[in-house]
């Protein structure tokens, strides 16, 4: 009784058949959900990485500049375009309000992305595949991507980063 003390003997009252059935079912589903996440780490192909390095905006910027210089193939709207070889380390930097560089990748090949920010938090949102990761200043987040589709993809920033947040959009091109 929500407003009155419970009736005598409430603690020893037997749980009704239907309530017991429901609780058992709910418990089983909960346990499946729990183990499913672990199973996906073993058999699934999409798991958020936890490889992270400490860095500083200065250091990460220097690494990205060196990376751009090494593999630069052109420029697009003032942003360098870079085509790194498969299985290499790729540097992507987020800053108010740009993603640099534009990346040209090959389908079915793995790339070890290093993503970090030079200022505030940013959100890495790959569209239209719709994969989303957080980008911090001072943390080098390592994500190994293997593109499974070709075409042009946008990197939308989806963490608020000030007044120009809506202009922060980058590009990844995936070739066959």
């Amino acid at each position, binding site marked *: 009784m929500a407003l009155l003390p419970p009736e005598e003997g409430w603690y020893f009252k037997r749980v009704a*058949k239907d309530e017991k059935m429901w609780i058992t079912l709910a418990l089983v589903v909960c346990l499946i959900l729990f183990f499913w996440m672990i199973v996906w780490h073993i058999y699934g192909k999409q798991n958020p990485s936890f490889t992270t390095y400490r860095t500083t905006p200065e250091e990460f910027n220097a690494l990205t500049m060196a990376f751009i210089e090494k593999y630069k193939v052109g420029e697009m709207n003032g942003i360098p375009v870079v085509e790194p070889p498969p299985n290499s380390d790729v540097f992507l930097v987020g800053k108010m309000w740009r993603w640099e560089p534009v990346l040209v990748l090959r389908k079915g090949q793995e790339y070890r992305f290093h993503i970090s920010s030079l200022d505030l938090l940013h959100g890495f949102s790959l569209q239209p595949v*719709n994969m989303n990761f957080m980008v911090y200043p001072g943390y080098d987040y390592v994500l190994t991507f293997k593109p499974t589709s070709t075409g042009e993809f946008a990197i939308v920033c989806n963490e608020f980063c000030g007044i120009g947040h809506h202009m922060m959009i980058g590009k990844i091109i995936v070739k066959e």
Partner: protein
Amino acid sequence: MFRTCDITGLKVDLRAERLIQLNAVMAVVSLLIGVIAALLLVLTRWQVVHLLPVDWYYRVLTLHGLNALIFWIVFFEIAGLYFGSTVVLNSRMSSPKFGWLAFILMVLGFLLVNFTILSGNADVLMTSYAPLQAHPIYYLGIILFAVGALIGVFLFFANLLIARKERTYGDSLPLFTFGLVAAAIIAIITLASGAIIYIPTLLWSLGIIKSMDAGVYKLVWWGLGHPSQQINVTAMIAVWYLGAFLTVGGTSINEKVSRIAFVLYIIGINVAAAHHLLVDPGPSPAWKVFNTSYIMYIAVLASMIHAFAVPSAIESAQRRRGFTKGLFDWLKNAPWGNPAFSAVFLSIIIFGFIGGITGVVNGMEQTNIIVHNTLSIPGHFKGTVVGGTTLAFMGATYYLIPLIFRKKIAFFGLAKIQPWVFGLGIAVLAVSMYILGAFGVPRRHYDITFSGGPFTYTFNPATDFFWVLFAVGGIAAVVGALMWILIVVFSVFFGEPVRGPQDMQLQVASPPPPAKEHGGFEAPGTLTLTLLFMGVFLIFLLLNWGWLAAMWEVR
């Protein structure tokens, strides 16, 4: 110092009553600000109108978050805690002086925060992720508000001790108050996290601390951010039980089960705050899986227990009153003309089918990749904290007006449809936001045509249709909320006084006849509804994992 309520027979401490009234009034003021902000936001994000300029969009978004998600709910919860620990227990307020102190601190915090936001010195959104920085007064305001709330929570415990010592109730607390105890324990853990993060942040904004680590800030901030919503969930469920009792005389078919479920909340619910860091650099999979599963989903289990216990309380009471035909005769003959009943029932449905289902998918480590920071996230919590908590609190207010403010409910005809307008509006809004998020539309974003950016991107054309639904649902919800505010304000300030039971427009249900012994199901209708829920849940889960499996590979 006391009056005896001629409707419920409860003893009411007049000093507690005054504090309940004041906190409730501030709750309504906060909600009004939140709702006006919501309207501006809907009309900005729907880019056909695109109402606000960019700086005001983020400013109003900050204003909306704090007023609708923090001030409205916490003021209302403090009113609820005082009500549950004095009136319900026939007891007195331990220290009205401290009650006033708590109230003044909270109002001061409310004023400082809103003033700083509106003057353009805190365009940081509710989360204010460092290194983004607001004016020190903003952080100070939040700290004052939280300290006030913390004093309120301690007063609640002091009230309980007095009631226990003076033996004003039986051996065990009523279930409503028991639920509030769970909420209050969670509140203390939550507010402690808040102190741990906002005090250093204040010092950092003053230049006393030199730097603030982005990762540490986000981790500790969510120790406040998410558990504060778990207080809401727990308080909302206490209100569901209260609603079932007041409207049809329904009591848990097994009190022990309901109480254990509240205890499970205390154990498991706070760790789930970790699910805000599922796609962040740093934490390991073991840490994420353990914490975000609420330690193996014991809090999800608790919610599912309540999802059966509350409707079955209603069903069982209705069946004992003679509505025994078929599976759903009890529901058909429920007091739908009582706005408190429709509000509570809609709150249960919206919380479960929209908020609950989406919440579990968002909170699983891998599927979080496809929802994080998209519009699906606010879509989810429109289902929990707006369609669930806010609607339940609105329903409870329909009893608060005659019993605590001693006024008749004005525009009673309007009140009968208000929960439907608000509830259906929110349901449409939440679902359309969730779907827009599934198309990748980001949350907290001024312009998804990316004008001024180096590149552009066009979302799937199907999103145009869901943006229209978004606007329709959003505007309906705003109308529903304004209806409620109109009814409450008019009743409280200009309403006819309630002079006795004859002026009571809502039924305070008498207990139903005792149950006869039988071997069958206690609540077959509820079981059917919960199985339907489970079916929808599993389908939604499989769809999301299917989508995830179609993404690029990542590890």
